[in-house]
């Protein structure tokens, strides 16, 4: 949810937090004071983290010194994927909806 500006009342509006519960999504009224601003910051930070991950992948959320080993790990995994696919193709397999299957002779 977020800031909801009413026809009457303050220009900033009131902050409503969306919470997922077992019975569905619920709107919680947090008003327009400190609690509302802290919650709004929290929501914005989470949104920004999700956007960064979507744009740059796992390495973007790596904490400090993790970026370099993750970059090298990406490289090793790409090799493992390429060579295992080559092995499967050359041993008579084909990909069917994401699964490798042996071709019938």
């Amino acid at each position: 949810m977020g800031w909801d500006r009413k026809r009457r009342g303050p220009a900033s509006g009131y902050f409503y937090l969306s919470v997922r519960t077992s019975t569905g999504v619920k709107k919680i009224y947090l008003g327009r004071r400190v609690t509302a601003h802290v919650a709004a910051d929290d929501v914005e930070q989470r949104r920004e983290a999700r956007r960064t991950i979507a744009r740059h992948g796992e390495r973007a959320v790596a904490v400090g010194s993790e970026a370099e080993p993750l970059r090298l790990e990406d490289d090793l995994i790409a090799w493992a994927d390429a060579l295992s696919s080559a092995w499967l193709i050359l041993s008579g397999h084909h990909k069917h909806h994401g699964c490798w299957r042996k071709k019938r002779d």
Partner: protein
Amino acid sequence: MTEPIRKRAKGSPAKSAKKSPEVGSRAWERSLANDPTYIRNTVESLIRRAEGGDRGAAELLFGWLEKNPDTRSTIRGLDELALKIERMWAERLFGTDEVGKAALREEVAALKAGLLGPAPSALEKILANSVVIAHLSFQQASMVASGTAEGAGGREARERRLSLAQKRLIAAVKTWEQISGKKAAGLRPRGKIAIFEPLAPSE
């Protein structure tokens, strides 16, 4: 009297510098067969074509891997890459704790011994290495996620990183399982392609 130092003219190549082949020449084309990025791009491109139903691509892939036995030495270089990543994760997990690092080295050695059969090929070594690396990466992500994070954004990022590390570990184990399972069932690629053949004990 000392002799004046002759300065090399700007732009002229140094005598000792190894001359790289001119781009587009035959020597340059031959040198590409040893370039890891070129090898991987070629293999990936042929795989994509084969997956897309191009029947000739599998033949081309077979011919390319058979004609370029030097690929094996490039791929052996991946052992060093894996070792480098292992050291990096050990450093990030244990810092200056040498006892912890030694215990981790033992754990990694045991894990590899369990994953590799008696006569592994270069491919099996890479797959075992990627499982080990993904395991270390997951351990690191778990450690970071259990620590204190600044703000909700930081917490979200750490949890997301942990979930991605978990997915990557599962994918690495699945690939290893798939190849070793099919190999155990007696399947193997046709012909004799160096990277799929068992390594000599010294390799």
